[in-house]
């Protein structure tokens, strides 16, 4: 229940309305007119509002609180008109089974009300002057002492800070790697973060996922992370997307990001991100951990030198869902954040284009230049694009599987390829694990998804044509397959 009123707020009645035998904790906040503001003596105060919008926005804030916290009841009343010293300007009340949720929700509502409710405060001081109170001194304007220490690093300065402020980074996965990455990027003043993760916080996450507290168990990770990040740096804009980044999903919105940091434990996501970086020239950073070791891959400055995740993982980096000590991903995540900041600021990096492995088990710390196209079959076939036109030159025992719809096939025929519906292919129907297949679709997304699924099912010799038929040398020419 949200209300605007020009009468004194009846707190006793409002608090009584929250009562619920299910609730064990009630938190109330009252904002009152103080007798001072920035050192000046306040005599009187007037609140004006845009009522229609204020009521819509107030209700929206309460609804957000209900969605985000396990609470039984929440209410807020805001005054308008003339107020005297000591009068209550705003009241927020929350009831919940547990006090964690009650405190958090109450705090959320008052913070959002102050930030978003279209209400303006006009103060009259004892010396007769008056002033509209506003946030004129915010981070957009002038030097922010918060970033002093990092601006002193050679090559950063005001210009580097400005680049961070204007940057948009997509963080895929806010688990053990994503927590330090998002935390350090928000702390450093990166202007906009998009967090992508479908999971909810579990108790067994807490030892290694530093953005979450016990009170967050059960909440969506992207929501809990957003909340903590805003507490740490309220000037960050954070988009929370509770979904997976999979080849099949719509990911066009990712193109808005200047940099993608893949912190997921999903090889398909890593493959997609690295592939996209290589094709589009956008930078990416990808990490993984395994017990006491972890690694990070930073895409090279020149897109054509890029490798895909399949190249890297074919060289032995396995990020299984096994036991892990918290510090291992914390090290790798922090290193990924460091690379992200350097790339955004424009500093040199000795890790760009490298797969860097830090193994705290053996004490071996090494940088590799991942081998491109030679050992990665998936990549090799894809880069054999122009050769693929004469399939026999490439591999006569390779079966081409055409995953496109009939309408797509008519637009660009692929003679000699065997049509197979996407769903059938995902299920492995009509395919033999000991045969060799090149999967083809229009853009390469569907074929990539099928390729990874089949490999997980034990198909050892399937590859995808990266970029699909669109990436073939001349789209206007029907392919001549000599088989």
């Amino acid at each position, binding site marked *: 229940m949200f209300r605007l009123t020009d009468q004194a707020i009846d707190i006793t009645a409002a608090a009584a309305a929250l009562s619920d035998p299910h609730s064990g904790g009630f938190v109330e906040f009252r904002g009152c007119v103080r007798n001072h503001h920035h050192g000046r003596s306040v005599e009187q105060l007037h609140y004006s509002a845009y009522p229609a919008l204020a009521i819509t926005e107030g209700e929206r804030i309460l609804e957000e609180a209900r969605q985000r916290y396990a609470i039984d009841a929440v209410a807020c009343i805001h005054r308008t008109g003339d107020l005297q010293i000591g009068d209550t300007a705003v009241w927020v009340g929350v009831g919940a089974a547990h006090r964690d949720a009650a405190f958090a929700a109450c705090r959320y509502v008052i913070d959002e009300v102050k930030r978003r409710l*279209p209400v303006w405060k006009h103060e009259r001081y004892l010396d007769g002057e008056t002033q509209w109170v506003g946030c004129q001194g915010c981070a957009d304007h002038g030097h922010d002492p918060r970033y002093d220490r990092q601006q002193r690093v050679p090559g950063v300065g005001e210009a580097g800070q400005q680049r961070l402020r204007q940057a948009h980074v997509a963080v895929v996965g806010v688990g053990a790697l994503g927590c330090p990455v998002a935390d350090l990027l928000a702390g450093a003043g990166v202007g906009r973060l998009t967090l992508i993760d479908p999971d909810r916080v579990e108790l067994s996450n807490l030892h290694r996922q530093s953005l979450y507290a016990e009170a967050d168990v059960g909440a969506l990770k992207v929501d809990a992370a957003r909340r903590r990040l805003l507490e740490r740096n309220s000037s960050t804009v954070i988009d929370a997307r509770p979904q997976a980044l999979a080849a099949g999903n719509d990911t066009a919105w990712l193109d808005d990001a200047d940099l993608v940091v893949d912190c997921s434990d999903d090889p398909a996501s890593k493959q997609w991100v690295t592939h996209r970086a290589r094709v589009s020239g956008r930078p990416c950073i990808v990490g993984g951990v395994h017990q006491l070791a972890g690694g990070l891959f930073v895409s090279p400055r020149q897109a054509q030198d890029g490798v895909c995740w399949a190249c890297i993982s074919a060289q032995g980096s396995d990020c299984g869902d096994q036991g892990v000590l918290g510090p291992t991903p914390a090290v790798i995540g922090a290193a990924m954040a460091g690379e992200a900041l350097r790339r955004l600021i424009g500093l040199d990096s000795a890790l760009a284009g490298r797969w860097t492995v830090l193994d705290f088990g053996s004490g071996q710390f090494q940088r590799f230049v991942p081998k491109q196209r030679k050992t990665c079959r998936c990549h090799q076939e894809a880069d054999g694009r122009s050769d693929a036109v004469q399939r026999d030159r490439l591999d006569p025992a390779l079966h081409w599987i055409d995953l496109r719809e009939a309408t797509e096939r008519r637009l660009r025929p692929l003679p000699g390829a065997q049509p197979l519906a996407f769903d059938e292919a995902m299920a492995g129907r009509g395919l033999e694990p000991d045969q060799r297949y090149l999967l083809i679709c229009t853009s390469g997304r569907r074929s990539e998804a099928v390729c990874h699924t089949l490999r997980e099912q034990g198909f050892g010799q399937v590859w995808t044509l990266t970029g699909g038929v669109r990436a073939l040398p001349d789209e206007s020419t029907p392919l001549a397959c000599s088989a």
Partner: protein
Amino acid sequence: MIRVLYFAALADQAGRHEEWLTPEPSDTAQQLYERLAQQRGLRLSRRQLRVAINEQFADWSDVLRAGDQVAFLPPMSGG
């Protein structure tokens, strides 16, 4: 015609709380504000403001249509 609402410090600077205007064809909220800022001597930069159209928060790139109610909102200070 569209109706323009000014609040708080902006109303003081504009010398009015509202006015009726005819927008240019395919005027965006941003174009309208920048023109009004010049005409009325508004001293808040667009980056400090939010805009609402028909009682909903809107984007600066939204195009205005006849009958719209446009509100320019200075930094809020409730609570």
